[in-house]
């Protein structure tokens, strides 16, 4: 393999990591509160607001039901407004983030579901406010489930980011399509796939390690 090729692969890998990191961090910052809201505003929950809960649920479901490839082109005007262009890794990070927010939110909600209602009740009996219940009971107790959910999100973002390559997003997907597929270079295609596999394995192992470390059960 030529050193030019090596540079190309290295750059594509870094681009993929960049897209996953940016969208992963922003989606977590926005998806975590959304997931908590989906949970605590349910009927009979600590901040029961059934109408808001319904509305958030519908919006989340819409976000989750649009295929990523369609979302990517559909929000191009929004992406342009935000980052000034519709191609490149910054542009690709916008639809990745938008797709990941509802994904993260549902996984967080699922993690909170696993908490025994008795824990919330006992915190209430101690005079905890809803905010205290969220920060001192719900999120710490759901820690393992939340890390699991974020790991799934990162893995999904790796594969979505490869899709972003199809529309000039950069990264390993882009490399695979342009060199591996369009230029009939099976070596590049194979290397791209292997790196993606390694990335996914790495994220999963890291996630599993953190879950094990946080698990006190």
């Amino acid at each position: 393999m030529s050193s030019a090729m090596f540079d190309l692969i290295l750059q594509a890998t870094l681009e993929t990591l960049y897209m996953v990191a940016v969208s992963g961090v922003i989606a977590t910052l926005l998806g975590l509160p959304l997931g908590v809201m989906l949970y605590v505003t349910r009927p009979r929950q600590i901040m029961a607001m059934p109408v808001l809960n319904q509305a958030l649920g519908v919006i989340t479901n819409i976000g989750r039901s649009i295929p990523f490839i369609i979302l990517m082109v559909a929000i191009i005007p929004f992406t342009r407004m935000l980052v000034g262009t519709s191609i490149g890794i910054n542009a690709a990070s916008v639809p990745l983030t938008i797709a990941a927010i509802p994904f993260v939110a549902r996984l967080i909600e699922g993690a909170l579901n696993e908490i025994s209602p008795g824990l919330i009740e006992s915190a209430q009996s101690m005079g905890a406010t809803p905010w205290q219940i969220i920060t001192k009971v719900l999120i710490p107790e759901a820690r393992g489930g939340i890390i699991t959910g974020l790991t799934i999100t990162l893995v999904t973002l790796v594969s979505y980011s490869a899709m972003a390559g199809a529309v000039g997003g950069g990264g390993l997907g882009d490399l695979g399509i342009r060199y591996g597929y369009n230029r009939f270079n099976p070596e590049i295609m194979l290397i791209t796939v292997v790196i993606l596999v390694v990335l996914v394995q790495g994220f999963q192992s890291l996630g599993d390690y953190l879950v094990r470390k946080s698990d006190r059960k």
Partner: protein
Amino acid sequence: MIELSNVSKTYGSGDNAVHALQNVNLTIPKGTIHGVIGLSGAGKSTLIRCVNLLERPTSGSVVVDGQEMTGLTRSELNHARHRIGMIFQHFNLLTTRNVFDNIALPLELMGEKRSDIQNRVLPLLDMVGLSDKANQYPAQLSGGQKQRVAIARALASKPNVLLCDEATSALDPQTTSSILELLRDINHQLGITILLITHEMEVVKSICHRVSLISDGKLVEDAEVGDFFTAPNTQLGRDFLNDFLQLSPPKELLERLEELPGEHTHPVVRLTFSGDAVSTPLISRLARECSVDVSILQAKVESIQDRTLGLMIAELLGSHEQTQQAMSYLEAHQLQVEVLGHVQRNV
């Protein structure tokens, strides 16, 4: 001091309405241990949750330490709850906090300083006998130890009232008695008023001063524990007592038992005696004074607090007149006589 007046709780409305509590009146003086006993679904859980408003009564008034709870704002209510500790059947400890931090939780919620928390938690750990477990996590503890942590946590905010929601129902008998002993000590040393709900007579017998019996959302009995165990007023109360004493006629006898006396039958009676009657040799006097022989089928003596309770199932052998006279004789000596039925002679 806890005072419930005309407390009702209804879930749903119209035809689907479920009346979990109906006009419950209950006064628990400061420093006493009050038990509420009932079958599952009778409304015990709802009742105890109405005290700290985890369940809001549909109507009625709840006064704890002179403060009407139902009229409080959210933040006033949270404040009031700091004065009411609660422990649960399944302990409800945070799995991600160690023992120390679990006990510290209510103090953190109140915004106490870290150094004050330390000063408060360490003596509590000592009191429940878990000083060496401060850094362990709940998963490493036994059920009894978990409940001790929960008790320490409930006491952290120095409450005047402790609510115990089936606190020993998930524990084995030995652990149960050690937890009950701890609760008794707490009541004794700190003067905390304790309201507990349970379905176990053993719990009521060991630590309660007074007991209420709940059935279908209504309190059907309210008595001193000694009175309740010697003379329950309701059939449900008697069922609980008989279950507890495990005193019922042998199956073989039950099959032969007839409801009405015949020409050649003997009555089978359940005798309950308490107080002086326990130490009086009534059975032998019965034989002498009424010429009735007594065939004892089962007998048991229980100590309930400072009282002794005797129970006996016996067959009275004699003519109809003699056995009637014997029963009047026993009743005259403060025994409760319940005729269970009649059996044929010489079978």
